């Protein structure tokens, strides 16, 4: 399974702060994003960044591994 986390404005649009997605072999970050964006288009309108296991992920083609923690995040507004 992949744990998907949402925060702030994205969590609000999705209506929850976490989801479990079944892991598929050869699943990339982009595949996961596409799947969720189709399900929650309104939330993904404001997604700007992704993180895998707590690290910024700039390359959307990276392969995910089973048990990964992935976050799709809106533009930060801390500070």
């Amino acid at each position, binding site marked *: 399974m992949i744990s998907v986390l949402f*925060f702030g*404005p994205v969590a*609000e649009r999705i209506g929850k702060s976490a989801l479990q997605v079944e892991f598929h072999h050869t699943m990339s970050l982009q595949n996961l994003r596409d799947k969720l964006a189709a399900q929650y288009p309104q939330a993904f309108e404001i997604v700007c960044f992704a993180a895998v296991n*707590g690290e910024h992920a700039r390359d959307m083609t990276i392969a995910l591994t089973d048990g990964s923690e992935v976050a799709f995040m809106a533009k930060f507004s801390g*500070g």
Partner: protein
Amino acid sequence: MKAAVRIQQEDFSQDEEISALKACSKRMGGIGTFLGCARDFSEGREVEQISFDAYGSMALSEMQKLRSDAIGKFALLDARIVHRIGTVSGGDNIVFIAAGAEHRVAALEACRWMIDELKQRVPIWKKEITPQGDAWVVPHP
């Protein structure tokens, strides 16, 4: 002594943070700080409170990296970053950044760089609570 990088609900004392920063070296000639506070008015609307959501573990590790990067980039003697979460009211402290160096230019430039980078890198989101309802803040580019 408290950790140099923290995310916490409670307020902080600048005197305490500065004395922790100074503890590392008596060669520190300049300390630049930035304190971000909750404004009671934003883009024409009255703001009663600000609440925060954060990807806590990632935010902390990004802040730790940011501190190390700043120490390396500006040859700082030490640096500290504290960010509050939870809910704060107008005038309350939100974020504190301190950079200590032998000379003032490095301290002041590092401080400016750290707050700019923090806003880019650290997964924290603020929501303004106003009499007209709540709204997540959309940062300007």
